[in-house]
């Protein structure tokens, strides 16, 4: 017998085993307190305000901002393009297509970090992924992006650079022309309720 035939037999038999293996356990079953703790510690779920500013300026199609404060606070002010899912209603059936989906990177935010990280832990406990937390929330967003404070005369060149970058971002977000078309209501995500992947690094 030549190598191809042997290989074919081996591959097909392994493939058959793979096919009859029980359905891969979803993370909701696999995730336990220990793993959740590790994920929180690694802080892979956090998005910094500078990262968010970059994403918004580039009009990245892959993100969805979710405001977890109550609707009164949301109607007073919310980030451009954000939708409102109050924490109290987070697990309502109608929000499932938003928080359990594969096509977008959800970023939870609130005034601080407490409510948004509670929302994140709850979705993570259910095994949903693709959800992230804006570290520092709106307070930090205003502190760093909208009203960046000058680092002072003793600042290093790196700090000055950061400040200039933030200043430019601030101009972008406070300029009235952009704000209007950005805040139009976003559509429902196209692919609801499927398992999805977390990005760990690119190879391109």
């Amino acid at each position, binding site marked *: 017998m030549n190598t*191809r035939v042997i*290989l*074919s037999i081996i*591959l*097909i038999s*392994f*493939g*058959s085993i*793979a*096919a*009859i*293996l*029980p*359905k*891969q356990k979803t*993370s909701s079953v*696999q995730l336990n307190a220990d*793993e959740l703790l*590790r994920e929180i510690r*690694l802080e*892979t779920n956090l998005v910094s305000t500078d990262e968010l500013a970059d994403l918004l300026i580039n009009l*990245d*199609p*892959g993100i969805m901002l979710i405001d977890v404060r109550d609707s009164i606070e949301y109607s007073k002010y919310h980030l451009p393009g954000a939708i409102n899912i109050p924490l109290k209603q987070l697990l309502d059936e109608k929000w499932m297509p938003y928080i359990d989906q*594969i*096509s*977008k990177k959800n970023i939870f935010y609130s005034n601080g970090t407490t409510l948004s990280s509670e929302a994140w832990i709850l979705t993570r406990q259910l095994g949903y*992924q693709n959800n992230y937390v804006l570290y520092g929330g709106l307070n930090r967003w205003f502190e760093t992006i909208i009203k960046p404070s000058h680092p002072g005369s003793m600042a290093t060149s790196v700090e000055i650079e950061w400040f200039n970058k933030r200043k430019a971002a601030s101009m972008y977000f406070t300029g009235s022309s952009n704000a209007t078309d950005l805040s139009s209501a976003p559509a429902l995500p196209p*692919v609801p309720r*499927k*398992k*999805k*992947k*977390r*990005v*760990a*690094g*690119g*190879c391109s």
Partner: protein
Amino acid sequence: MGPLVPLQNISNELNLLIAFVIGLGFGIALEQAGFSSSRKLAGMFYGYDTTVLKVFFTAAITAMLGLIFLNFVGLIDLDIVYVNEYYVYSAIIGGIIMGAGFIIGGFCPGTSFTAAAIGKIDAMWFILGSMIGIFIFGETFVFWKDLYMSGYKGAIKISDVLGIRDGYFALLLILVATLMFWVAEMAEKKFKREDITKEI
């Protein structure tokens, strides 16, 4: 539980060492397969040497089965493994340009490095060419930005699209691959060219 680097707090230096060791394995595998020869690689498209197809599909299937089994044993969390993000138009158009580059240049980036390592001068020029290509892309990015970003579908898996389990898809791919191996060996007999196969 793997993958180890993102989950086990492995230091950056060790991560880079891992990169180097994996690269060693990658280089040896490519060179031993004969991918350091552009004529062997291009033989795929003329039927006289189908090594590319065989290596490519055997490798992908081995890794695919390995991931399924490791996941079953609980050694790897597939949700953390990187899945390429799908941008419809850039993937197709990028692929077409790469295909043209493949048949004209006879290498792909990975194989050009192994070929250059054993002294193929054409491979070195290929690497230089690809640097120029990347530089041109970076400089003219404004023109491609819309294309680069359009048609975003997320990090989507083919088994999700077909609505079948990963294992079924793996079996399906294996059946297709074994069929292709059989056709490839027939083609090799039909298009055999002693003069070329001796040189490479």
